[in-house]
């Protein structure tokens, strides 16, 4: 917490602007220390915008199960466009290679594959994305 008699450092970044940058916990350190994961699992979403194209990774979302993930993906990533095909995959089920085969060394974030890149650029043909 920021004591009210002190002036916090502030950044203009973070989109809508001025937010403090000091005295703000990130959650990065405490992670995994006996905290029971209570939120819905993360799913990665792949969309085929139209016939003839590959499914392309468009992002991720949370859902209790795969059906809910499909439903939510249609709402969020395709604006319910008919005719598109969607895959959802539980992020923790993805096995990924590591950049430049450096796996043994990069302990900080290389432990879990589910921290997978999101928001790939997608072809212009994909509607409303």
């Amino acid at each position, binding site marked *: 917490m920021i004591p009210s008699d002190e002036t916090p450092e502030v950044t203009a970044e973070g989109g809508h602007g001025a937010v403090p940058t000091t005295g703000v916990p990130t959650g990065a350190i405490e992670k995994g220390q006996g905290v029971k994961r209570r939120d*819905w699992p993360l799913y990665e979403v792949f969309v085929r915008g139209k016939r003839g194209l590959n499914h392309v990774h468009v992002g991720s*979302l*949370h*859902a*209790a199960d795969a*059906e*809910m993930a499909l*439903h*939510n993906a249609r*709402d*969020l990533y395709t*604006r*319910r466009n*008919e005719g598109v095909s969607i895959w959802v995959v539980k992020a923790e089920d993805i096995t990924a290679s590591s950049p430049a085969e450096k796996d043994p060394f990069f302990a900080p974030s290389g432990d879990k594959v589910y921290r997978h890149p999101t928001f790939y650029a997608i072809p*212009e043909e994909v509607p*409303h994305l």
Partner: protein
Amino acid sequence: MSPHEVHQGEHDATNAYQSLSETTEHDDPRWAFGTGFEDVEAEISAPVPEGTDPADLAAYCQMLGDDALIYSQRLSEWVANAPELEEEVALANTALDLLGQARVLLSRAGHVEGRGRGEDAFAYLRDQAGFRNIALAEQSDDLDFARCIARLLIFSTWRLALLHRLLGSADPVIAAVAGKGVKELTYHRDYAARWALRLGDGTEESHRRMQAGLEWAWPYVEELFRTSDEERRLVEAGVAVDPAGTREEFDAVLAQVLEQATLARPEVAPVGTIGGRSGRQGIHTERLGHVLAEMQSVAREHPGATW
């Protein structure tokens, strides 16, 4: 520069500054999403089908339109109140779909009536007795998600059955709304049914709450299948469907969902009528007055304003 490059330049996603210099003359398709207008605008001014009383048709468009408008108004109360961000998006989408249906139907009512009233005149300048929606639409669920799902399941199952039968309506606007609406309502019903399963067969608490949600909504079910005089006459003209004819489908769908969700069909008395009149005749519950007071407040505060 090739035309293709010019095209790409115009759609440079990173150059959001462009936006202000671009025209705002007509609705961008992005904003028309959920309003339904782009599909049926041309048909709103279509002639009244032969053998149809324009007053009956205008009344019927208000019935279907008011159900959607008032329920959309209630659903949008969930904005910034949903149990998870994913549900924020889903509930707002549903409210937008219904609002879109309402706008087309009320515009059609205005055209058929021929007194120069547009969608906003219907939404903002009618008094309570002018609204023809069913009581289920106007109730407050008090932001109880179980009630929200119970009502959505009931409403979408019923409306989907209606719209299915209206695909062949002799009125081209109603048929067009049904065409788009069937897809939308299929989606709403699917969403509600899946949540009914999760809540009914989730935890003890969610089961209890979901059952209570059903008990809350159930007294308003019977009205859905009551046929008004206008509807009866329009059925003969091939414009409307008799809501009583959707009861069987409704019961079958609900039975299937409730059984799988380990929920019991409520045994509660329906809310009564006044001299046989209810929502379709402009006789409402006490809740509608509050809905309208809120919805119409700004519009009525500024007569003659343009928005």
